[in-house]
């Protein structure tokens, strides 16, 4: 008897809940809007009665979703909370997330040493996104509705950035993305979204230009089957084709260890590639580069090795790719010649703490927080609109140079520019460097492209020679 | 009830486990199946109950060929068996153990009727007070009784018992003995495998003797007792 009663009870509860779910669904938009007004009113009545009407008007006009809990008045808080994300566990790129977290902590230290933001100390809340898009949604939600952050910075994976930006847009929270390359992120033209990393298109353009300057006719692109590798390899292939250069793409899973069958296939092609471009990150890129070197695929006199940008971490590179001498690698962000005081200060601190070379995403993460702090200072308020306005007017020197966002609400993207130029820093430099001596550090590597920054007067130090 | 085993052979790779066994059971007979170790007794049981499919030959139940049918079908057609090692469903209660065959046999039956019947049988086996215990907490002998109880719930016409007396307390042996004779009187046929010569010779009405996969004797106990082939099988050929 008991069992049946229990089952009946459960069945009734289920039915009622489904009913509730459906009923909720129909009436939702109005309900939400009202809730916002009410909560805002109550908050404001307690603090500042005069503000009420103005506040309510704004809310009705923009209709963000209820739940955002960051205060808008800096006097209410004793510290400025800023959220940050990055991958700290698999399947995310753990190295990327870790480095970003370190760099952001240095940024917090530097900002607070310089007096904080609006006279208050900055506090950073960093969450692991695991490289999973659904985590991006959850974590952004938590930062915005739980921890009450006024802005978000960082993130490494584009797939995560793409879901995070929807949440930020929903709640109207400004975001400065540090290292997500997907065009669509600024291409969304959301008010809240800013980016200081290059877009995939910008990087592909640079790759194609460099390869063209090398005079290559046939290129093999080895890419990881991921949100980074697939679009990047396709964009590069397309741009190479525009320049009359043939290319073939080889895809592999993230984290691949044994590349010998793919290397055998590349070497069995009827043409020897002039360039092998590695669009694979992490340990898999090292595995590929070393195994390709051992098999005599690249670097050789005939074939230029373009290693992945992670090669910039020279210590790790030489440990993992001992035979990778003469490999070229892309460096995004900062032209060494243009290093400024901010760069040097950050780099010194970073090297001292972690005994590592700061990768581009370290600088980017550091700068993303500086930019956010700078904008809040200039806005003089924690109101998202004020911060977004201030971000659009950014003009400051960070570790990677002068930051500004040419296009935004006041100055829309002109039709002849790609739409991803919205809130996009246009100047991330893309350089190519080349190791020419075993064990060389990234600082000692030759800059081979673009021409104006060349340190050795050539696009390529030929294999086996010393400049 | 009529069971006919017709020229059954069974090979495992090169080993001939059964080699042309034929016999039949007509009506509620009480049959003992004996033979030295490795003679093929358990294998024969497994063939009848459908665990193995004979390589050659067939088994018929009431004129219908049952060899080749899956074990559960044979069980539902009225052949019940126990195993050499007790195989109660250890992490189910005694009552649940009893319900399994009943519910498998009568998909549309009412649970309460089965529960009543199970209690009745458990009373008969003097273990009704254990109905809600887990089978694993029973003693070895009680588990054996439980297996017999399960068989009654299945209500088969032919019951095959594999070593029912092995390693059993003398008092329990009596209970099992009584169970067999009572159930036999109710009109069920039995095939009992046992190493216990004294018991099996007293208990059964007819004896089957297997040796090296062949049936070497089939008849009343007193006749089999003096069969030279049987004596030779047990004592070995004197050179």
């Amino acid at each position, binding site marked *: 008897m008991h069992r049946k009663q229990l089952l009946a009870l459960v069945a009734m509860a289920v039915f009622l809940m489904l009913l*509730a779910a459906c009923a*909720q669904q129909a009436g939702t938009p109005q309900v939400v809007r009202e809730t916002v007004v009410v909560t805002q009113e109550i908050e404001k009545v307690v603090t500042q009665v005069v503000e009420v009407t103005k506040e309510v008007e704004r809310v009705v006009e923009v209709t963000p979703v209820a739940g955002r809990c960051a205060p808008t008045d800096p006097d209410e808080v004793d510290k400025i909370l800023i959220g940050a994300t990055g991958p700290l566990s698999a399947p995310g790129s753990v190295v990327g997330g870790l480095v970003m977290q370190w760099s952001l902590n240095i940024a917090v230290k530097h900002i607070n040493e310089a007096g904080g933001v609006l006279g208050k100390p900055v506090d950073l809340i960093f969450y692991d996104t695991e490289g999973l898009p659904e985590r991006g*949604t959850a974590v952004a939600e938590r930062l915005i509705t739980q921890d009450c952050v006024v802005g978000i910075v960082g993130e490494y994976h584009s797939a995560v950035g793409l879901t995070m930006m929807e949440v930020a847009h929903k709640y109207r929270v400004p975001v400065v993305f540090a290292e997500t390359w997907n065009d669509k992120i600024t291409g969304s033209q959301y008010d809240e979204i800013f980016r200081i990393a290059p877009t995939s298109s910008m990087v592909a353009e640079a790759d194609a230009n460099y390869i063209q300057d090398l005079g290559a006719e046939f290129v093999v692109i080895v890419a990881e089957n991921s949100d980074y590798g697939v679009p990047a390899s396709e964009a590069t292939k397309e741009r190479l084709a525009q320049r009359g250069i043939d290319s073939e793409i080889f895809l592999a899973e993230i984290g691949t260890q044994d590349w010998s069958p793919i290397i055998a296939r590349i070497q069995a092609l009827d043409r020897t590639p002039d360039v092998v471009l590695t669009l694979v990150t992490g340990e898999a890129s090292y595995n590929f580069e070393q195994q390709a070197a051992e098999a005599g695929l690249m670097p050789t006199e005939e074939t230029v090795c373009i290693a992945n940008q992670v090669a910039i971490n020279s210590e790790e590179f030489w440990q993992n790719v001992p035979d990778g001498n003469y490999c070229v690698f892309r460096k995004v962000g900062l032209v060494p010649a243009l290093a400024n005081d901010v760069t040097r200060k950050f780099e010194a601190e970073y090297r001292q703490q972690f005994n590592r070379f700061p990768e581009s995403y370290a600088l980017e993460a550091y700068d993303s927080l500086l930019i956010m702090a700078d904008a809040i200072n200039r806005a003089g308020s924690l109101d998202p609109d004020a911060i977004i306005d201030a971000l659009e007017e950014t003009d400051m020197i960070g570790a990677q140079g002068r930051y500004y966002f040419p296009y935004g609400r006041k100055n829309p993207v002109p039709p002849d520019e790609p739409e991803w130029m919205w809130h996009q820093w246009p100047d991330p430099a893309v350089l190519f460097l080349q190791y020419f001596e075993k064990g060389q550090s990234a600082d000692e590597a030759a800059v081979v492209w673009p021409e104006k920054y060349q340190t050795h007067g050539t696009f390529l130090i030929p294999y086996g020679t010393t400049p | 009830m009529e069971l006919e085993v017709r020229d059954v052979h069974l090979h495992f790779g090169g080993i001939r486990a059964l080699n042309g066994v034929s016999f039949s059971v007509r009506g509620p007979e009480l049959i003992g199946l004996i033979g030295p170790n490795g003679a093929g007794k358990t294998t024969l049981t497994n063939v009848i109950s459908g665990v193995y499919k004979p390589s050659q030959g067939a088994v018929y139940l009431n004129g219908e060929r049952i060899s080749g049918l899956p074990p*559960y079908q044979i069980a539902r057609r009225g052949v019940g068996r126990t195993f050499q090692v007790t195989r109660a*469903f250890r992490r189910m209660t005694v009552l649940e153990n009893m319900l399994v065959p009943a519910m498998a046999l009568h998909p549309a039956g009412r649970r309460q009727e089965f529960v009543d019947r199970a209690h009745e049988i458990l009373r008969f086996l003097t273990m009704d007070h254990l109905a809600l215990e887990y089978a694993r907490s029973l003693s070895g002998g009680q588990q054996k009784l439980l297996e017999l109880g399960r068989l009654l719930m299945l209500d088969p016409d032919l019951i095959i018992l594999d070593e029912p007396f092995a390693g059993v307390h003398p008092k329990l042996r009596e209970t099992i003995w009584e169970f067999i004779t009572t159930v036999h009187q109710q009109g069920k046929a039995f095939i009992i495998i046992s190493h216990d010569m004294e018991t099996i010779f007293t208990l059964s009405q007819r004896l089957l003797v297997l040796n090296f996969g062949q049936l070497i004797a089939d008849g009343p106990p007193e006749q089999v007792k003096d069969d030279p082939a049987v004596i030779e099988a047990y004592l070995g050929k004197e050179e």
Partner: protein
Amino acid sequence: MKRVDWRWVLTGGALVLALSAPLLLSGYPYWLHVAIVAYFYAILASSWSLLAGYAGQFSFAHMAFMAIGAYGSGLMGKYWGTTPLTGIVLSTLLAGLVGLVIGVLCLRLKGAYLALFTIAFSEVLRLTLNAELDITGGPNGLDLAPLLNTTSRVPYYYLMLALLLASLGFMYWLAGSRFGLFFRSIREDEEAAAAMGVHIVRYKVAAFVITAMIAGLAGGVEAHYIGLITPNILILGQMSIVIAMAVIGGIESLIGAAIGAILIQFSLELLRELGNWRLVAFGLLLMLTLRFARNGLIYPLIERLVLYQARRAVIEGREQKAKQVGEGA
């Protein structure tokens, strides 16, 4: 004197708490989200415990069935333009169909062989979803249309809670019926069950089909709620989390597994700051639970709190019966 029946009090209390959670958490949409995901894992863990704990089929393909539900619905929406609801219904059936095939293939496999086979199935599915990026979107994942036309979490919360209760109710009914009886008899001793007339093939396959459909249904709803599904959900680590939830909750208890899943999901979220150390602790907890608390950590509590009276009644009944027997003799 009539005792307070703790079973009703606790069940009622839990239901009231679950029903009023959106009100309690109205200022915390993030925790509402965590609750939705926790219910999703609770459905997976409890249906896995039906398959593994009740029917004894230690399959590692449960997340694969979930993914079939999710990807099935997403792909049908993408290529045939089905609505999410139709997609979920059809992909639930699809998961059941695949469950049928896997169930039939796994009939003869036991223990480690079954585990290895299902791991292989799940890995091949993951590789395929990754490799066929033109169809599935590969590692970028597949976008899914929202199931409900709303920006609020509350309807989703009730939907997932309803799904959890419905599936728990259904599984309890099943476990109490002949299905449960036969599942357990097969788990205990397949051959003996067959000798008792149990159609083992039918019930083994049924266990796979039913649990695959529950997992597929949960996967479909969850994917439409999140709006995106990636093949990463199929990595072995994800499956091990579901298993750990069921084991820590109590692998032979549906409600234990569900409560275990909810508690673990919340604690993993609460301890997020600890990074990987929380997973280290989680792995250790899993091993220790297996070694020293075979019934899990949650189920014994439930048993103690909720089943206390039931057992009491049983003991009293038994004493009475013993007395009768004594008098009879």
